[in-house]
């Protein structure tokens, strides 16, 4: 029998099996988060000052690893790329969301996923952060009527890198090469800035 991944979205698993596996996979991620240094704001905030770019190094190498595996999986016919979930791109909401996110991140030293692992390792600031996230979510429910036009503007649907560059949506060669170059560019920028900041010393 031929296996075409992903299992759940191609109908191999039912929902309860998938939910059970979600917990197991989550446990794996939780362990990886702590061992990657994601479970403290002392590693997240310094990225914005280029003082310690460890979490950025982890993040970029993870993107390159997964992108490579997905690329190869599709190339050899084991993965149905159209069944891999990609959130629709909403240009302006993504841009504004990104700006707010960055400000919130350097202010708090957390993002939602890392804060879950932070609470589990005893970080009080992670718990307060998550209470702030819940308050913000509730606020968003309240204001949704007023912001929904903006939030749903600029919808480009499943918008891959290849498509953005004028190629076929599922041209993975183009998407992969660009992802590879952009990721390494980002990593190189982080490492160079880190070196400059370290040489300058702490004022």
């Amino acid at each position, binding site marked *: 029998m031929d296996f075409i991944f*992903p299992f*759940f979205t191609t109908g191999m698993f039912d929902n309860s099996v998938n939910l059970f*596996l*979600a917990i*197991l996979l*989550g446990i794996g*991620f*939780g*362990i990886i988060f*702590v*061992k990657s240094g994601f479970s*403290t704001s*002392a590693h997240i*905030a310094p990225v*914005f000052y280029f*003082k310690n770019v460890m*979490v950025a*190094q*982890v993040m970029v*190498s*993870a*993107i390159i690893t997964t992108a490579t595996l*997905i690329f190869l999986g599709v190339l050899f016919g084991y*993965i149905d790329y159209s*069944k*891999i*979930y990609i*959130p629709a*791109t*909403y240009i302006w*909401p993504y841009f504004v*969301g*990104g700006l707010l*996110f*960055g400000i*919130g991140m350097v*202010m708090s*030293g*957390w*993002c*939602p996923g890392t804060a879950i*692992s932070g609470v589990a*390792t005893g*970080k009080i*600031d*992670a718990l*307060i*952060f*998550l209470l*702030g*996230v*819940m308050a913000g979510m509730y606020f968003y*429910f309240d204001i949704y*009527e007023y912001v929904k036009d903006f*939030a749903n503007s600029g919808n480009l649907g499943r*918008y*891959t890198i290849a498509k953005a560059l004028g190629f076929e949506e599922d041209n*993975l060669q183009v998407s*992969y090469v660009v*992802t590879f170059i952009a990721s390494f560019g980002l990593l190189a920028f982080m490492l160079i800035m880190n070196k400059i900041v370290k040489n300058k010393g702490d004022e």
Partner: protein
Amino acid sequence: MNKNYWNPYVAGVILGVMLFITFLIAGQGLGASGAVARATAQVAYQVDPEIAKNAYAGKYLASGNALINWTVFEVVGIFLGALFIALLSGKFKLELTRSKNYPAIKRVLFAFLGGFLIAIATRFARGCTSGQALDGASAFSAGSWIFMLAAFGAGFLVAFLFKKQWKGVE
């Protein structure tokens, strides 16, 4: 390099392989903000069921319980996994991370306010560093790069405002 942590490149490859396995099984990767949004909707529902009529929270509650969801189960797993390794390695420690002598009340305020902003940000961006940046970029979504670059850019631009909070913390 701190011996409590893996080499960042090795950690990245492990995280990437884990993410790939998750994509293979579930067709989606890591998520976090969606689970917190759902938890908020469910808590609000327990307090006052009227929230089910809300145009945004209502869609989480349509199936009866906002918490019966893949990302919510995964986040429960993240918590358990992190707790397990913290207890196992004796790393569980209550602390409010901040610069030495930085007022605790200001740190608490910024942690809360940052979370508040991030919640709204994730609703506009349909995800956070996990579901949007990591998953999306790995699966070749152009929008993920818009989000990531805007987030890092804005973070760098306003970083000077919070410098005192993080001085010596690294």
